[in-house]
């Protein structure tokens, strides 16, 4: 099994989710993150003080899938997460040893 973590733009989340869903991926977990990278942050001014804000709000999607599905997931995210501008984000792929469904105790791919 694979764990795919993708850091994408907020307004792409809905599209990516729907596309994954259409490709048969019906589970994922999402969280708010702040990213630092090539995409520049901005400055803010409060009375006398200027603050440089380097972190940009992003969304992180985690999808666990079978090895077979890996490419499908990655391609879908690539396709639907892209704008072509700096800051589109990354996909990170790692191995997963096991998955368990808490409700039933099912293990492995059956748990997804």
């Amino acid at each position, binding site marked *: 099994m694979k764990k795919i973590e993708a850091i994408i733009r907020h*307004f792409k989340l809905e599209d990516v989710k729907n596309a994954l869903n259409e490709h048969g991926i019906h589970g994922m977990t999402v969280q708010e993150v702040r990213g630092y990278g090539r995409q520049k942050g*901005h400055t803010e001014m*409060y009375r006398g003080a200027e603050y440089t804000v380097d972190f940009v709000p992003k969304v992180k999607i985690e999808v666990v899938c079978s090895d077979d599905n890996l490419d499908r997931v990655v391609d879908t995210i690539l396709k639907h997460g892209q704008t072509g501008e700096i800051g589109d984000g990354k996909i990170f792929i790692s191995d997963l040893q096991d998955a368990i469904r808490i409700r039933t105790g099912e293990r492995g791919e059956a748990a997804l």
Partner: protein
Amino acid sequence: MRTSPRRWWVGAIAVCAALWGGIETAGVFGEEAPPEDEVAAAPETPASELDTGANAWMLTSSALVLFMTAPGLAMFYGGLVRRKNVLSVMMQCLFLMAIMSLVWGLWGYSLAFGDGGRWIGNADYLGMRGVQMEAGQAPMVPGLGIPRLTHMVFQGMFFIITPALICGAFAERMKFSAMVALMVLWGTIVYTPLCHWVWAEGVLAFGADGAFAGGALDFAGGTVVHISSGFSALVCALVLGPRLGYGHDDMRPHNLAFTSLGAAMLWVGWFGFNAGSALAADGLAASAFVVTHFSAAAGAVAWSVVEWVYRGKPSVLGAASGAVAGLVCITPASGFVQPLPAMIMGAAAGVVCFIACAAVKTRFGYDDSLDAFGVHGIGGTLGAILTGIFATRAVAPDYADGLLYSVSEGGPLLVGQIVAVVVTAVFSIVVTLVLLKVIDATIGLRVSQEDEMRGLDLSEHGEEGYIFTG
């Protein structure tokens, strides 16, 4: 307005003189006698003595109406946008409180309430001449128990909230600079004439010489405030076009707690708006207070119940919107109708504005972000018409009975009301359209796509609304 174009230049020049050369212009700073006609007017009404109770109530009402714009409207509107635009909305309210007040003090009041004939005021009160104190005395409003300063500042609060209402239509996408330009022009060119037409014996004033169709009843601003802002708002929504991602992205209100609290503040402040429009602390003020309250109540119940029936759940946004709809609707009628009809008016507004926001907008697909047209345009129109039905001489003996009480009086009244609605709407639409085109060609109306996506708080003001980390 077009009949007296000369006056505009007189005003503009006079105001500049007053401002920049003002230090020398002793009159502005209080040493000159009041303008002739004011002095002349005085003998007519020797009984115009200060009524401290009336003045107390009017100062309180002025504070209440300012309270409506901010915190009230700022919180109501601010909660309805997405997090990334909350400050931009609050900034619009706050800055309008500031800039419109200056405009009002410098030339707005004079254009609106100067005794200048049927179309527009005059230069009498430019830069607060004839309004401000002279020799320790505050000039009184003839026939009323309050100083002209009080009248001026009370009316000035309306001059603030009216443009602020329009902001609901173009929220989340308009340039701040364009908004400022639009509102200064709109206030001067749309609001002050309208105000003169309705409240200074102009062409829409009930019973005024030469008024269109006999004029209309508008106690606290159905035409001047709500119809004008509502239809202008519609034009703005159409001209600016929908927000990026409209109909697709998640545009849920980011803080309905704010919106609920803001609606309650509007409700409270509206007592100043309507009951204050009695310009006295008398029985009529009490009556206006009561009908305002009942109409808001009925509006909130009606909207909630309609939602409950058609969608299964009453929402707090529905109750809040319904209350505001009821308040809008009763505004023109508040000095003319009885309590039970007020409940009927509020309920009607709740239902009709719900349909306007939920069905009509969806069908036509324009993006009136915060339903400024759906609530103020529609609710104001409804109120103006229902005033022609429910007005009664039992409340205002000097005016006219509505259709419910007298066909002979009510018929013409209703016609007058409808004419006033149409005139106000058409005038507002046309001028707003022209102003938007001019601004679009010069300053530009919309922020860039990138700025819109990043949110106006950051792109237009360099700030963030909430920083909850750390």
